[in-house]
């Protein structure tokens, strides 16, 4: 028995009980829309951030750099929850990854 909690930056939250598969799969099965693109871990569209608990990547998260992984960012299309966890989700999260380099 485990719970996956999702939190959007606009304050919305949702919980999925006994999630199956990746965070993206589990959210979709519960009728919750999360952003995604490639579904293979290459594009970063699905980027989320772990707020509590643990998730593990099923394959190499190619779209994230070491520094992003160290900061808790995860690719929800290839990340599976390890027990209870909470993840920040939504299109805004991936905007943290890379800033304007000229600024």
């Amino acid at each position: 028995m485990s719970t996956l909690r999702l939190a959007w930056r606009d304050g919305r939250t949702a919980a999925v009980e006994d999630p199956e598969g990746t965070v993206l799969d589990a959210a979709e099965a519960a009728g919750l829309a999360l952003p995604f693109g490639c579904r293979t871990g290459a594009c970063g569209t699905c980027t989320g951030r772990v707020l509590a608990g643990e998730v593990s990547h099923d394959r190499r998260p190619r779209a994230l750099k070491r520094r992003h992984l160290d900061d808790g960012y995860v690719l929800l299309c290839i990340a599976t929850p390890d027990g209870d966890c909470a993840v920040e989700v939504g299109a805004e999260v991936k905007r943290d990854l890379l800033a304007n380099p000229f600024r």
Partner: protein
Amino acid sequence: MATDHSHDHERTDHAHHDHSGPGYMTPQAAVENAPRERLAYVMGNHVGIDETAPDFLAVVDVDPDSDSYCQLVDRVDLPNVGDELHHFGWNACSSSCHIGGLERRYLVVPGNRSSRLHIVDTEDREHPEIAKVIEPEAVHEYDLSAPHTVHCIGGGTVVISMLGDADGDLPGGFLELDDELNVKGRWDPAGEIDFNYDFWYQPRHDAMVSSEWAAPKTYQPGFDIEDVEAGNYGHELQFWSWEDRKVEQTVDLGEEGLIPLEVRFLHTPEHAHGFVDAALSSNIFHFWKRDGEWHTEKVIDFESRELEGWDMPVPALPTDILVSMDDRYLYGGNWLHGELWMYDISDPANPRHADSLSVGGYFGDVQELQGRDIVGGPQMLQLSLDGERLYWTTSLYSTWDDQFFPEEAEKGSVMLKADVDPRRGTMTLDEEFLVDFGDLPDGPARAHEMRWPDGDCTSDVWE
């Protein structure tokens, strides 16, 4: 779906005025005989803005005599979300103009993020419909992903440049669709190239040129200067034998040629001259063939500009270029600076600046039109076949927009137009023309590449 024309594949002689297929016999015939564009097909994107809205093909009314001028008169919503529509192309272009039974009817509309290919039937030009969808698995099967440029290659088959392998890593390659627009397989023998982006071919010279962006895993999350230092962005051009499907020559453009994007041959099939924009180095290169060898030379160089309070000078980032159908002018847009430019390329080795418009971007003089903020600079371009109207959109790629023009996510992008006087070599911003992709029923969208129903300056090739 496509009509059976397998019995009809023989090409007739070019001197012969047998014109039974799609397109125009010559570029000059396209200039003289093409009707004025009344509709534009435009890629519309919700990726990065709305998680539940699919991307769409917009049908935009560009007929000034119409009541719905500058409006989206129809849209084809895709069956999935998250595709990120980018570039697209026709099943047939002027390279097939000797092939009876073939029509310029199907648009191949790839999702750059998803690797999904949509085939759109435009038999009813105003109300196109999805004819079929090729799912990503069918593309990944050939160890390819991230489709980009779509070209009809003559005779009803289509080739698509693919930027990555099935994992979103290097190498990229080319995918071929058959004349029923099903996946036929890889066009190139695997291992010819690493990076890929745009391509253009010139059959009379047995030539194809392809350019280099980066692996999907590098450019899709956004632009990271560390990737430039790590060599994760391309700086080479590949010159292919079109017949043998092999790279014959690689030219390294070096520091001055970082991220060579759009490649445009002159349209006249006799000419072996073209141009490429090195976006990150803010340069335009001329390439040409002489004595069996390809040569390149930097012919235009845009200076970086200081912006008060910013750490680094801002490069111009010329992301798109196009050559007018009469091969007289080269057009381009400096996306970050906000500049649209035209050069006279009567002598392709010595482009002569003809005119510029300062609009959008960080430095543009015109930042607002009809009370609407423009935000991004000129990005994808399309020119009328007669060379008198130049149109452009302002979005580059969702994740890059978010870094450089974050407001575009809230406001959406716009499609704008300039009137061109090809005799004088001047452009004038048409202040009456504005298509607002920020003001749509299901929220703001980004607009990207544009095509006309009857061929255009960035899709037509002559054999």
